[in-house]
C-alpha cells in the first residue's frame, strides 16, 4: 500500500458508458470502498478504439493525445487510469509514437492548434490500466487485509486479451523482471484475485485473441475464437472467466450466446469483470457492482458459492 495512484484521472471511454457499464460501476464502487479517488477526465472523447487507425493512424493518435492534453492542462494530476484495454492501449500508443515519430508530434500539434486546445507533449502524463492502479495503490496485502467475503472455492480463469500486453514496444514498463507485469504471462489479475481468496486455474489462453475487432464484421471467426477461450476455460475447471476489458467481456458474452443459438454449442463459464469479483470480496453487493448489467448471468453460481 502506497500513496502512489491514490488520486488518478479516470478515463472510462465509450464502452464503459454502454455495454461495459458494469465495469464502470464496479471500478467506481471499488475505488470508493478502498478510499481511492477517481477524477473523471472532463469532456473526454473516444480514443478511436481498433477502428480509426485503419482509416489513418495519426488521427487515432490525435484522438488519444487530446485526452492526455486535457489531463495535463486542466487537471493537476500526472496519472490517467483507463480500465478499458482499447483506451489504455491507444493512450500508451500515442505516448510511444509522440516520443519516437516526429510525424506524430507534427500531426498532433497541427490538429490540436486547429482545434484550439493545448497539444500533448511526451512524458506529461503517465497512463496506467485499472490493474496497475489496484496492484500499486492497494496491492495484494491491502486486498488480503480488507477481504470480508473471501472468493474461496471460486475457480477463476484470468483473461487479459490482446491490447493489454501487445505490442511490447508501447509498454516499456512491462517485462522488467521481478514483480513487473509480463507480456507473455501477465499476472496482475491473478495476484489480486488470489489475494481475494479465489482459486486461480492455470489458463493457457490468458492473452489469446477473442476476435473483438471483428465481432460483427466477421462473426464466425469471432465465435470460433471465443469458443476456444470458453471451452479451454471449462477444461481447466474454471467457473468464471475474469475480464479486464469491455470489448473482450462483451465479445465473450455475445459469442457465447451466438455459439448457442447458431451452432447449438453450450458452454458454462460465467464472465465477470475483475473489479466485480474484487468488489464481492470487499463485501459490496451484486447490484452496486453492476453484476446484473452483464449479459452472462452469474447470480446462481455466486449464490451457490455463498457470494451473493
Amino acid at each position, binding site marked *: 500500500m502506497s500513496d502512489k495512484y491514490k488520486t488518478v484521472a479516470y478515463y472510462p471511454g465509450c464502452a464503459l458508458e454502454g455495454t461495459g457499464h458494469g465495469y464502470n460501476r464496479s471500478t467506481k464502487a471499488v475505488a470508493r470502498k478502498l478510499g481511492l479517488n477517481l477524477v473523471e477526465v472532463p469532456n473526454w472523447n473516444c480514443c478511436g478504439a481498433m477502428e*480509426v487507425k485503419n482509416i489513418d493512424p495519426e488521427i487515432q493518435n490525435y484522438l488519444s493525445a487530446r485526452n492526455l492534453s486535457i489531463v495535463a492542462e486542466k487537471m493537476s494530476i500526472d496519472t490517467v487510469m483507463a480500465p478499458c484495454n482499447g483506451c489504455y492501449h491507444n493512450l500508451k500508443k500515442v505516448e510511444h509514437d509522440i516520443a519516437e515519430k516526429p510525424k506524430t508530434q507534427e500531426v498532433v500539434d497541427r490538429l490540436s492548434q486547429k482545434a484550439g486546445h493545448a497539444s500533448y507533449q511526451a512524458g506529461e502524463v503517465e497512463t496506467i490500466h485499472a490493474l496497475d492502479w489496484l496492484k500499486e495503490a492497494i496491492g495484494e496485502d491491502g486486498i488480503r487485509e480488507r477481504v470480508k467475503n473471501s472468493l474461496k472455492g471460486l475457480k477463476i480463469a484470468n483473461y487479459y486479451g*490482446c491490447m493489454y500486453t501487445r505490442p511490447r514496444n508501447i509498454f516499456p514498463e512491462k517485462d522488467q523482471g521481478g514483480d513487473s507485469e509480463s507480456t507473455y504471462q501477465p499476472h496482475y489479475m491473478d495476484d489480486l484475485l488470489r489475494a481475494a481468496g479465489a482459486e486461480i486455474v492455470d489458463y493457457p489462453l490468458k492473452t489469446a485473441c477473442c476476435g473483438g475487432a471483428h465481432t460483427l464484421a*466477421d462473426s464466425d471467426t469471432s465465435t470460433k475464437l471465443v469458443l476456444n477461450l470458453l471451452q479451454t476455460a471449462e477444461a481447466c475447471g474454471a467457473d468464471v472467466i475474469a475480464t479486464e476489458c469491455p470489448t473482450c467481456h462483451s465479445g465473450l458474452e455475445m459469442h457465447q450466446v451466438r455459439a448457442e443459438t447458431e451452432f447449438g454449442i453450450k458452454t458454462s463459464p460465467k464472465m465477470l469483470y475483475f473489479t466485480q469479483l474484487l468488489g464481492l470480496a470487499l463485501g459490496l453487493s451484486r447490484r452496486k457492482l453492476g453484476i446484473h448489467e452483464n*449479459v452472462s448471468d452469474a447470480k446462481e453460481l455466486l449464490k451457490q458459492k455463498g457470494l451473493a
Partner: protein
Amino acid sequence: MPIHEKSLIRPEDLTEHEKLEIDGVDVSGHWSTFIETRVVSDYNERMEEEIAALPGGEYIHRCFQCSSCTNVCTVNSLNPDFNPRYWIYLARMGFEKELLRDKELLWQCVSCHKCTHACPRDVVPEGVMKAMATWAELKGHTGVSPSAAFDAEFTEQIVATGKIEEGRIIRGFFKRTGQPLRQPWLLEMSLRLARHLPILMGLKMMLATLFRPRTRDWGKSEAAITEYLAERETANRRALNLDETAGR
C-alpha cells in the same frame, strides 16, 4: 518421380497425364507429373511503394521473411491460407497477380498484435495487413470489406460527435452492409440482458440511442480531422496513381 511437396504447389500449376508413354516407357499417372514452367513478366514494380504509402504499411521494407508473424498469427491458426509472411514476400517482389488470389482474405486480420509483438524487425505486420486490404479496395480489386465498412461507420461517428454509441454502431453497420438487424443471436442476447436488467438502466440505454453522447465544443476538432482525412485520401490515391478527385 512423384513430387513429394505437391501440397505446396497450386493444382493449376501441375499437369499429369492419365495415360502417357514416352520412348516405350509407361509414365501414366503420377509418374508423369510436371510442374508447369513459370515465367513472370508482369511484375508491379511499384507494389511495395504503393503499400508502404498507405496507413499501416510504412515498414514493409524491413521484412526479412523469418515468418514469426505467420507463426503466431491468430487467423492463420484458423485458416492456413491467411499468411502474412507470404503476402509481404509477394508484395515486395511485385507479384500482384499472385497476391490477388488471396484478395478476399486480406481484410480478415483481427488486430491481435501477436505479429507486431513477435516481429524482430518491427515491420508492424498488422499494419501491413490493413494497408494491403486498403490497397486491394482502392485499386478496385475488391469491394468494401465488412471490416472496412465497420471502420468507416465507427470513424464517421467519432468525427461527428467525438464519441460513439454502441447501439448506433450496430445499426449503422448492419445497414451499411445490407444485413438485417434482427439477427437471432442479437435478439437472444437482448432478451437475456432484459431479464435481469432494472427498468431504469434499460431506459437509460434507450435514451442513449435517442440523444447521442457527444464531446462538447467538438466542432473545431471535427473540422481539423475532416480536413486532414481529405488530405490523406488525396495522398493515398496519388500514391496508387488513381484519379485523385474520384474518392471512395
